[in-house]
């Protein structure tokens, strides 16, 4: 039996003016290229949960494939985020017309099961753990069920856990690989459409499992840059320190997402710098407290905002760059927010910046609230769930004001001059730290002759 596992990949954007800006502004393009080149960890996990006597192919689809490019598998599994789901449905339809049964899965499917079920022979909700092996067995016996629900808990424990099939990536030109150490995040921000929506609580792999996966992933490539597919890696600081000590000897360069409380723990920061972590992405959302009220159930981010600047400085002073994420157009925001964010970025010297608009991904609390309030622009807008396309009526500005403000902020933040200014700040930090935290501490030795010359003068 042959199963094709298909990941809908690529960055999607529909705002033509932003697209035009994107091709000329350096930083947005560089981040987009990175996201577009990550393999689908979900499908690699599905492959691992497939019985060994079944042949599995892992395929990524960025653009609509021609008819003759569609292989006649016995079964196809397609995973997609919301922005590509309509394309996934179309592809599913084409396979089904060929007589190939299709299973759909992924976050969007889990949150919109009734919709997805119309386009597939079967759907898998939540993760594949606890579901995919049953599905394959049922398929073999000719009794594929319309829906399978994977586990929402204990996904990293036996008998449900399986190490993703990183070997399927061998020989492919990824510029970074991905491993997941945790699912979920207790902050539960209303806009979040990540793994917390398919898990019952924050779950994290043992350090041993996480390290074993990192070893397996990095063995498939000569380029060992790693991106952890976590929503929030350092919720558990004790686990985090054990993890960092364990990976320090591996010589990695890596990236992850976490929250600003990372800056509170000096020991954790030191270990992070020495582990090869190059960048952390942190959801700052807004530089003003008002907009953060109610964003998460405990107002956690609102209570942190007055410490944002010093926290960013503390992290970056270790040589670990921060990618600060902002959402403009939150309910408390007025048109002044665009200058406020621009000024905050300048003041904070964030090396990288991500600017998005509130995106009501289906199934999120944000989606349900905006739907209740009658503020969604359309009933179905999945292909526009790109983080950059506006899909709702903002509270204190028009849609056009928000779109224009985002364009302005993109130009102000992502232009070469501003990017170079942020780069310059980071370069000076690296010199001051003798390259600690850069993942290239040996540079200090290569640079050493200059120091010797200076001492001889």
């Amino acid at each position: 039996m042959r199963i094709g596992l298909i990941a809908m990949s690529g960055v999607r954007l529909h705002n033509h003016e932003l697209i035009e800006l994107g091709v000329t502004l350096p930083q947005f393009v560089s981040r987009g290229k990175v996201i577009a080149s990550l393999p689908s960890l979900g499908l690699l996990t599905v492959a691992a949960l497939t019985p060994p006597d079944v042949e599995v192919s892992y395929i990524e689809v960025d653009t609509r494939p021609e008819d003759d490019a569609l292989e006649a598998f016995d079964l196809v599994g397609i995973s997609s985020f919301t922005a590509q789901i309509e394309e996934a449905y179309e592809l599913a339809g084409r396979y089904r017309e060929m007589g190939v049964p299709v299973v759909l899965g992924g976050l969007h499917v889990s949150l919109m099961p009734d919709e997805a079920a119309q386009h597939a022979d079967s759907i898998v909700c939540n993760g594949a753990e606890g579901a995919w092996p049953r599905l394959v067995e049922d398929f073999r016996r000719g009794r594929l069920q319309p829906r399978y629900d994977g586990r929402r808990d204990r996904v990293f424990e036996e008998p449900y856990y399986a190490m993703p099939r990183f070997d399927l990536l061998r020989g492919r030109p990824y510029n970074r690989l991905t491993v997941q150490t945790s699912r979920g995040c207790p902050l539960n921000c209303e806009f979040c459409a990540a793994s917390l929506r398919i898990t019952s609580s924050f779950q994290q792999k043992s350090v041993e499992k996480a390290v074993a996966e990192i070893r397996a992933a990095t063995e498939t490539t000569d380029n060992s840059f790693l991106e952890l597919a976590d929503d929030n890696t350092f919720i558990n600081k004790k686990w985090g320190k054990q993890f960092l000590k364990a990976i320090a000897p591996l010589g990695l360069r890596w990236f992850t997402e976490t929250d600003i409380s990372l800056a509170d723990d000096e020991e954790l920061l030191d270990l992070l710098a020495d582990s090869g972590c190059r960048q952390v992405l942190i959801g700052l959302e807004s530089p003003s407290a008002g907009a953060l009220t109610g964003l998460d159930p405990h107002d956690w981010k609102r209570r942190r905002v007055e410490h944002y600047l010093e926290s960013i400085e503390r992290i970056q002073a270790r040589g670990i760059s921060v990618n600060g994420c902002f959402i403009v157009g939150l309910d408390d925001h007025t048109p002044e927010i665009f200058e406020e964010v621009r000024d905050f970025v300048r003041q904070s010297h964030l090396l990288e910046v991500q600017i998005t608009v509130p995106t009501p991904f289906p199934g999120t609390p944000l989606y349900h609230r905006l739907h209740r309030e009658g503020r969604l622009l359309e009933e179905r807008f999945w292909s526009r769930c790109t983080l950059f396309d506006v899909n709702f009526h903002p509270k204190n500005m028009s849609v056009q004001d928000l779109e224009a403000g985002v364009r302005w902020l993109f130009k102000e933040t992502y232009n070469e001059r501003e990017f170079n200014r942020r780069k310059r700040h980071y370069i000076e930090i690296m010199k001051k730290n003798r390259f600690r935290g850069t993942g290239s501490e040996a540079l200090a030795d290569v640079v050493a002759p200059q120091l010797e010359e200076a001492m001889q003068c």
Partner: protein
Amino acid sequence: MNIDAAAFVRHPNEPAVRALLAELAQTDPADIGLDDDAEEVLAIDSLSRLALVAAIEERFDVRFPDEKLSELRTMRHVLDALDEARLEIAA
């Protein structure tokens, strides 16, 4: 090897720049070509490219203009930029 490339190989700063690139690319210095793009060919990520700039500035006691930072993508770019920086210091 063309004349330009040969000239660069005899460039006095070439061994040090090559050593820095090799350290970041985790490769044999002899495998680095004059026009190999740091990111596309040598797989030096964007943050490591900043480390490269920092290291070169430290090693040669120069400071590149900020508008040059995005242009330093190959050994040739770096050697050219060093020559320009040194000329400015001498002037």
